[in-house]
């Protein structure tokens, strides 16, 4: 479904990604782990072109999104993204946060979008917050809304960029719970996270990104039980 070929990304003289190759199939749950500065977030942000790759190519369902003239906006409609800092639209109510994009892009009528939003809000248990503003919500609630906002576009794949890193510890669980349910529903997911428990239980594959390349890739059982790369062994010994 997503195919990444020899992806490079530099910020000035700093080469963050040094040739990433990977294939993601439909329905897979890919969890990416790595130390800070390893390039894992940059990799994820390249997938929906929030970062423009320096070289290499990315194909989504056979279409090269890195080609000049590719319709980036249309491609992004199919790729939901959840950010570390939620990034809910501060000037809009929760309902408007969720319905803005589908209505503005002409995918759903106002009524459809509203109905859809209420159904999704019910799924994450936040129906009563429909008329609230983001500033009135806790971090965990904001992140659940952010997930709902992406889901309202009916995406084919969801990208998560450290979705629980900015949360108070007691709120991590409620967000991971929503992500687990989403995974069970068959959504294709790419998740950058430090939650090893989530990786172990939900991932179909775990990737270790280090020094701008994928150093190790395996099923969660093998990945955590028999890490082969020395840097990964060192990393796991620190976080587990």
């Amino acid at each position: 479904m997503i195919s990444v070929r020899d992806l490079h990304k530099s910020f000035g003289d700093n080469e963050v990604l040094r040739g990433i190759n990977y294939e993601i199939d439909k329905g897979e749950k890919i969890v990416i782990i790595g130390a800070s500065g390893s390039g894992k977030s940059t990799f994820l942000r390249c997938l929906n072109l929030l970062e423009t790759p320096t070289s290499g190519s990315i194909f989504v369902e056979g279409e090269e999104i890195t080609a000049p003239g590719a319709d980036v906006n249309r491609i992004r409609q199919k790729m939901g993204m959840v950010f570390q800092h939620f990034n809910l639209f501060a000037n809009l109510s929760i309902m408007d946060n969720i319905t803005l994009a589908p209505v503005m892009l002409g995918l759903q009528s106002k009524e459809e979008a509203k109905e859809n939003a209420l159904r999704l809000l019910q799924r994450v248990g936040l129906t009563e917050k429909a008329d609230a503003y983001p500033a009135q919500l806790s971090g965990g609630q904001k992140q659940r809304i952010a997930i709902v906002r992406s889901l309202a576009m009916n995406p084919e794949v969801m990208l998560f960029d450290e979705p629980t890193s900015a949360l108070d510890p007691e709120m991590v669980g409620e967000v991971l719970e929503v992500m687990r349910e989403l995974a069970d529903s068959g959504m294709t997911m790419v998740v950058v996270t430090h939650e090893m428990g989530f990786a172990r239980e939900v991932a179909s594959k775990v990737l270790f990104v280090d020094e701008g390349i994928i150093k190790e890739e395996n099923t969660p059982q093998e990945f955590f039980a028999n890490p082969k790369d020395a840097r990964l062994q060192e990393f796991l010994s620190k976080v587990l």
Partner: protein
Amino acid sequence: MSEFTRKFYQDFIQDNRWHFITDGLKITLLVTLLALLIGTLIGIVVGIVRCAHDQQTKNELRGVKGSILKALNLICKVYVTIIRGTPALVQLLIMYFVILVTARSKVFVAVLTFGINSGAYVAEIFRGGIMSIDKGQMEAGRSLGLSYVQTMYKIILPQAFKAVLPSLVNEFISLLKETSICGYIGLNELTRGGDIIRGTTFDAMLPLFTVAIIYLTLVLLIQGVAGRVEKRLRKSDVR
């Protein structure tokens, strides 16, 4: 007749001199409001062009569209530099005696000068406001498939407007008072109206204080309206 009433009569009642004040006030308000309109329009456009340019990556600035944006950005930069770098009075005199020599209406010259002048300041205010909005807001909009313009219009500008409102009000108040230099091109606005009375009756205090109080009242009015607007805009901040 007391000294005060005698002067008051002389300054305002005799020969209908109060007309200098009321007619002047009309001109001041007309020039300020029209300049405000022009200035805000110029300011928003220039501010957005400057931000749009600065927020694109080098890659996105390639090609025809990128080149146009680069050229526009340069024009906007030069405009802001020249307008902010020279006194409004000099601009007014240049406009009246050099550029628009054939213009019949002094009001027109004043409106254009102050509109262009104010636009430069409003542009910088808007640029600052837009830049102050967390870049995650733009990323979130773009990640949903909205275009740059759509995200700007629905997400960034409303938040930026709220953030810059106090600075905008400040600029508008400055504009109102700055129109008092229109006397230099012989436009009889409020200040000059008061000054004409002073020159006729040789009483300085009463006409000038009157003019000052009128300006102060107008500023208080603007402040009052701005306070209400701010309160309404703060709706989304409630915790």
